[in-house]
């Protein structure tokens, strides 16, 4: 019977490649990527004018997400530009969250008795890596589009040129301080985006582990509602991660474009 002391957050190290320890979350992240690449190549190879059932299903999913992008970004052209990044986030996190639900995946063990695959998003490193990619996307794309305007949104030196009389000085200072506050809020976004994903996934895993570890007879049917709940939260979190990245990106791009 497992107790609370047996639970831990850190993944098990399977083996070392040079100085890099390979953990079981890493192997499953790689497995998810390879699965997705193979799936994409398979669908692409069999794609035709007369669609198969699988192709219809994939196109339905893409259309559904595309319509969301068009709704938020405003035009089809813009949506097509950012679609690959956002949809990759969505589909990767979606599959990674549910990866250990595939039958027999969690029963693969190494010689030391460690499970070979573990939900990759339930360790902090993968959400942080994904969030860093997203962070660079939503800051770097508007920066390249118009560097000075983008920096001007944060360090608002322009407000001082509009001072006409002594009465305008407090308002200008306030605007300037709000610009500085935006820098802090960018940092908060970078922290909160991965923490949300990680916290939800790890909470789901821990609840299942605790409930099945309570008594002998709670291992069998009692965790099922919790598993359903964690499947749901995994779906929602994948959607939320992609959508929040899109929202931050679109507000930054719009700020740069509609600057006056």
């Amino acid at each position, binding site marked *: 019977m497992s107790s*609370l002391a047996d*639970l*831990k*957050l850190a993944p098990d190290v399977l083996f070392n490649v040079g100085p890099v320890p390979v953990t079981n979350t890493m192997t499953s992240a790689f497995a998810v990527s390879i699965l997705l690449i193979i799936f994409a190549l398979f669908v692409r190879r069999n794609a035709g004018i007369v669609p198969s059932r699988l192709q219809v299903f994939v196109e339905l999913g893409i259309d559904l997400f595309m319509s*969301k992008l068009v*709704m938020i970004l405003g035009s089809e052209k813009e949506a097509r530009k950012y679609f690959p990044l956002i949809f990759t986030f969505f589909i990767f996190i979606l599959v990674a969250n549910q990866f250990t639900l595939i039958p027999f995946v969690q029963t693969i063990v190494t010689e030391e008795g460690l499970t070979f695959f573990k939900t990759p998003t339930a360790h902090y490193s993968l959400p942080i890596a994904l969030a860093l990619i997203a962070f660079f996307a939503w800051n770097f794309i508007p920066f390249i589009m118009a560097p000075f305007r983008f920096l001007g949104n944060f360090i608002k030196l322009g407000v001082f040129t509009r001072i006409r009389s002594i009465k305008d000085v407090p308002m200008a200072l306030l605007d300037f301080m709000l610009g500085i506050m935006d820098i802090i809020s960018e940092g908060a976004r970078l922290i*909160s985006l991965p*923490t*949300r994903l*990680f*916290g*939800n996934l*790890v*909470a789901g895993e*821990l609840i299942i582990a605790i409930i099945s570890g309570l008594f002998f007879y709670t291992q069998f049917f009692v965790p099922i509602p919790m598993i359903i709940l964690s499947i749901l939260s995994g779906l*929602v*979190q994948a*959607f*939320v991660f992609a*959508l*929040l990245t899109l*929202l931050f990106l679109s507000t930054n791009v719009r700020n740069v474009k509609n600057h006056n």
Partner: protein
Amino acid sequence: MEPAAAKLIAAGIAIGLGAIGSGIGEGLIAGRALEAMGRNPEQSDKLLTNMIVAMAIDESTAIYSLVVALIILFAF
């Protein structure tokens, strides 16, 4: 008090108090969104997306306290 006991109490208080605000907030969001959907059913697709995003942002404070509780339990 023993350190282990203090750890458990601290983790319980952290997640318990942290979840109050976000629970109230999520209830308000869902209630208002459902109200709006009832008044304006053709808008419900758009509302559902916005509701989920708003809920996720609202939930993050509870998630922060969960992470703090986990750090108290496992990292100290």
